């Protein structure tokens, strides 16, 4: 396995991370090194083994659809990096 810089660039775009040239090279090497170590999993035959997504023995819990009071919106908006009244302000979505 050899992870290319192009693959790293593609993954970074999917992850919304901007990488400079040095980071692209470093991540390509590190991911390659880490994933190469993880290829030991290939030695295991997992045909027909059910995947475990999580361990708690639970079904999806349901609750009644009841209107409840919203906590103070100002408290939740207070951490917003930019706001306009009761709205979060963001850059234009459609160019």
């Amino acid at each position, binding site marked *: 396995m050899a992870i290319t810089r192009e693959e790293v660039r593609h993954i970074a775009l999917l992850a919304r991370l*901007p990488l400079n040239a040095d980071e692209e090279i470093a991540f390509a090497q590190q991911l390659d090194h880490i994933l190469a170590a993880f290829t030991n999993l290939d030695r295991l035959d997992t045909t027909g083994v059910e995947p475990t997504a999580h361990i708690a023995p639970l079904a999806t819990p349901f609750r009644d659809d009841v209107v409840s009071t919203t906590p103070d919106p100002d408290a939740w908006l207070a951490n917003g990096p930019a706001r306009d009244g009761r709205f979060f302000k963001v850059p234009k979505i459609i160019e």
Partner: protein
Amino acid sequence: MTTPATGGGGGAPGSALVDLTIDAAAAALRARRVSSTELTTAALARIEATEPTLHSFITVTPELALAQAREADARLAAGAPRGPLDGIPLAIKDIINTRGVRTTAGSRILEQFVSPYDATVTQRLRAAGAVCVGKANCDEFAMGSSNESSAYGGARNPWDPTRVPGGSSGGSASAVAARQCLGALGTDTGGSIRQPAAHCGIVGLKPTYGRVSRYGVIAYASSLDQVGPMARTVRDCAHLLGGIAGHDRFDSTSVPRPVPDYAAALDGGVRGLRIGLPKEYFVEGMSPEVADAVRGAVRQLEALGAVVEDVSLPHTEYAVAAYYLIATAEASSNLARYDGTRYGLRVDRGQGLLDMYQQTRGAGFGAEVKRRIMLGTYALSAGYYDAFYLKGQQVRTLIRRDFEQVFSTCQAIVTPTAPTTAFRLGEKITDPLEMYLSDIFTISVNLAGLPGLSLPCGFDRQGLPIGLQIIGRPFDEETVLRAAHAYEQSTDWHQRRPDL
């Protein structure tokens, strides 16, 4: 390196009070021999004296602590304490939301974030009357095994400040070991409570997945994360677990089971208890001193009447790979919420939405977080999902079955907590894979969702603590605590303390 438990604490003010266990402090508070304000003042003085060396905290909260202490004193004066945690100074890992207090998760991206709500565990500690002295340092988003990935600079090990305290709950462990508080909460995704507990010579318990609510705990890998107690004795951990455990309708993975009286379950010893010793946990590369100390602890448990048998967990060697594929995949999804829109850092050069996302995340996340997001995004991406993420989940099933097999005859499993004692700052930071291997003995427990506890079982020649891990059946924290308590009461490791 060590001084007796009754020693002077290196002359730090209030050391006699901060040496109290939670259990002893609760008794002293009820007997009115001490007030919560005195205890809290002593803890804050200890923080002030040792924090320049240790950096266990990202935020210290003296005003909140003293206000909570005064309220506790009023309840105690009225003869109405709320339980064993009322008036007790505790630290809370900075990845757990606390209403009105800055909560950073060790990340620049949340540097200014003041939580508008309490995590369920925080709310339960408040309701129990506990005093919050501060938010403990941690690896960024709990991603690390040394504290070196904290954006605010990592905590140090109280036994030797040139060494790491472990991670990611290293600040919590350091604070407890250094008597900056009487107990703490940590979180454990792949060993983040147990490994720092081992490195700092304290007791740390990762409960069964679903035992403690994750609501309000900043998510790293949701199917693995669990909050748990860290303290200087097993009994103190039992008190803390009793304070935070139980069903929570705000967490859909929280399990609706009654909470036992953990402190009452400590006695009874280990006579006849069947304990498994997995051969796969004594691996090449581990410190011989750690192996010796753990084998010594096993002989001690046998002397106390436990029946120890050799067992096998054959898929152990695959745990690290399965863990990092699953955990990073979940992390890449969980950390998508840090986009500069609703909270946290925003970097906006006015060049559109995608640019805002990228610049914000580029500036807000540190190298280890980016690495794990990249790894997780890769493992989930088209063409690699089956080879990596699905494979990891299938191996998780095999690891879970290994434990089920052993637990069909054994009631507990004993292993080392970490392959070595605390390593030096900088020693592993340049090799991510090497760092990932420091959690080799703790990771399987998270994959299988089991309870696991680390407690001190010796010291190496350099005076650094060694941890013993006890793993239990699902929701059987009582047996784990009982075995740990029996061992602890027959040794004096837990009474040693760092000379700061």
